[in-house]
């Protein structure tokens, strides 16, 4: 078995008595594209930041490329790419200057990728970063995070401000990275259709807890919404993710009949997301 690029072990974190992360276990392995799904404030950003050692969890251990996340060596840091929700750090720079400086911190910078991306997203080298739109800034941050082909790419809402075409282009590059270079990608998003397209795995986080973690296709194949009239229905064969008066979301369904069930429906990712927060 290969060593995971990133592994969270029993991670818990509290802010002012409020539990932001509760016993999270998650591994990112080469080739994986994990989509992190959750409401605002569910703890996604905290989870991502803690992988970079920016936040130290109260409990548990995070290993990144075989090292503890809060003691990353320089060579490991050069293999991690990160795009924050709000990129910040090159205010006052022109695009070309910012890239030139950023490039100088990375020995393995892919100039071709940089040029390709700048052209594709119509970023003008002479534009001041302060004048860029949010989407353009995000694109620039993506270039800065991806041009050195990191082994581990951590993206916090990377596509939220990109237009649909830019999002598609970006995703195709993501696959280049994940599949051709064997990198692992962990990204959070609200846009379920993007996750549906891109992710190989889904991690669904609700109020700091990892509710669901599996291959996307397995989730889509085995998660069902069961409607019923009698609350005595026997669902013990499955993992029940959410149960209401007359329906339940189950996980592990393999196509058999369920006694007392009125209907068994498939769910799109968006429906699943909404149902789980119902």
């Amino acid at each position, binding site marked *: 078995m290969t060593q995971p690029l990133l592994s969270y072990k029993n991670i818990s974190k509290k802010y002012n008595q409020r539990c932001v992360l509760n016993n999270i276990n998650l591994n990112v392995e080469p080739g994986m594209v994990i989509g992190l799904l959750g409401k605002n404030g569910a703890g996604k950003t905290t989870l991502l930041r803690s992988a970079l050692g*920016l936040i130290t969890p109260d409990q548990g251990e995070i290993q990144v490329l075989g090292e503890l996340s809060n003691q990353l060596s320089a060579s490991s840091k050069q293999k991690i790419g990160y795009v924050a929700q709000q990129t*910040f750090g090159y205010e006052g720079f022109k695009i070309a200057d910012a890239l030139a400086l950023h490039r100088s911190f990375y020995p393995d910078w892919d100039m071709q990728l940089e040029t390709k991306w700048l052209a594709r997203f119509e970023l003008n080298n002479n534009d001041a970063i302060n004048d860029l739109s949010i989407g353009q800034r995000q694109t620039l941050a993506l270039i800065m995070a991806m041009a050195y082909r990191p082994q581990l790419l951590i993206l916090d809402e990377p596509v939220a401000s990109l237009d649909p075409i830019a999002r598609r282009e970006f995703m195709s590059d993501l696959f280049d990275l994940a599949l051709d270079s064997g990198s692992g990608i962990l990204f959070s998003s609200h846009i379920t259709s993007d996750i549906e397209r891109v992710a190989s795995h889904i991690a669904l986080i609700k109020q700091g807890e990892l509710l669901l973690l599996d291959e996307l296709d397995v989730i889509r194949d085995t998660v069902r919404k069961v409607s019923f009239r009698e609350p005595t229905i026997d669902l013990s064969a499955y993992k029940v993710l959410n149960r209401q008066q007359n329906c339940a979301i189950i996980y592990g369904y393999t196509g058999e009949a369920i006694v007392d069930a009125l209907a068994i429906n498939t769910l799109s990712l968006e429906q699943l997301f909404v149902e789980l927060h119902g």
Partner: protein
Amino acid sequence: MMQVSKRPWYQGAVSFWLKDVGSASYFIAATITSFLCLIATGIEELITLMIMFATICMYSAIAWQSIKMQATEWQSLVVGYREHVMFQGKVFIVFSNLISILSIIIAGNINLLATLTLANLVGIIIWFLNRSFSHLFTSVCYLSFFIATLVCVLIEQLPVWLIPVNIIAYIAIALLHNNFSSAYVWRPDSLSNYRNGLQSGWSPIPSGFLSNYGSSINKGLFPLSYFVGSGLSQYLILLTLLCTIGVVINLFYNITEHVIFVLTLCLFAIVTLSLWSKIQKQNSWELLFTLPIYNSSFSAKVALSNSVLKLAILVASLCFITASALSLANPTFLIFNILSYSLACSAGVLLSFAIGNVCKNINLLSFFMCISFGLNMGLANYMFDHGNNISELIIMATYTLAMAAINRFTVRYL
């Protein structure tokens, strides 16, 4: 493939230090004052103040950058990013110290070295505090500036024995800083501290302070107060308080000259602050235009220039009342001096805002503000000391009218 070592130390320095408005305002002030030190070597009182100011400003610029470091995730993730920026800062510190030492050598006064070492000591405290606590920036800077100015004004010559004491304390802090393990750690609240700092600029006043009393003033000075924020009325009230205290003390000890100097200094500092806040909110114009009170964007601009005029009249009356009250303690009532002085102050206000109207570029603005600051300070103080006849009063009146006209005229360039 690019080698890390090929990066020159100054790469990105212009963007880091001059294009970031927060750091630029300190950095430019520090640089200009540093060079002025060389010129001002003959004037003893001034050079002490300037060495102090230049050095502390430079440290403040670095402190500002270190707050920025705490706000960006890159500093902890990108290997060498923080070291690169901070190295630039250290080079600037050394550079500014070298200039100061040069001017001390020219001035030939060893006591100034005590001032310089003390300034460095205060500076490193500002810097190191801000490396760990981003929310302290404005308060720490202001406290330091205040203490430093007080030291310069109260103690004419710092004793020479302070030099080794300061140096030892400095080295001790520099060596012990490794124990402040939290330095430069990324913090979730740093970005908002940075943004707040940017918004308030040099403003030392907490945002809620005196807001109840100021609302009528702010209403009277709309739309200027809209751009400057509630700070405008707070400053004016504070200034009035300061004047009152000065007048009361003057009844017992004769400190007329000092009060006038401090009043003028505070006044133009406040004008600079207000302009700073106004520039920061330049893009709020759109909101102002959409308010149903102005027929056109031009009438909004005219309203702004009228409110500046009102502010200038307020300033003139404050100066006049204060100076008159101060004069009561004196045997002679110097009516011409007082009138010329008041006019010079209000003309200074008008000139500064006219510059603010014309300058779009923040660097250019800082530069011209520094010049007009010096000009206004010099003119006002000169008028109080020497403007004792009618011809000077007439010149000042004409000058003030000209400034009012210029301020009104330049409004179209906003």
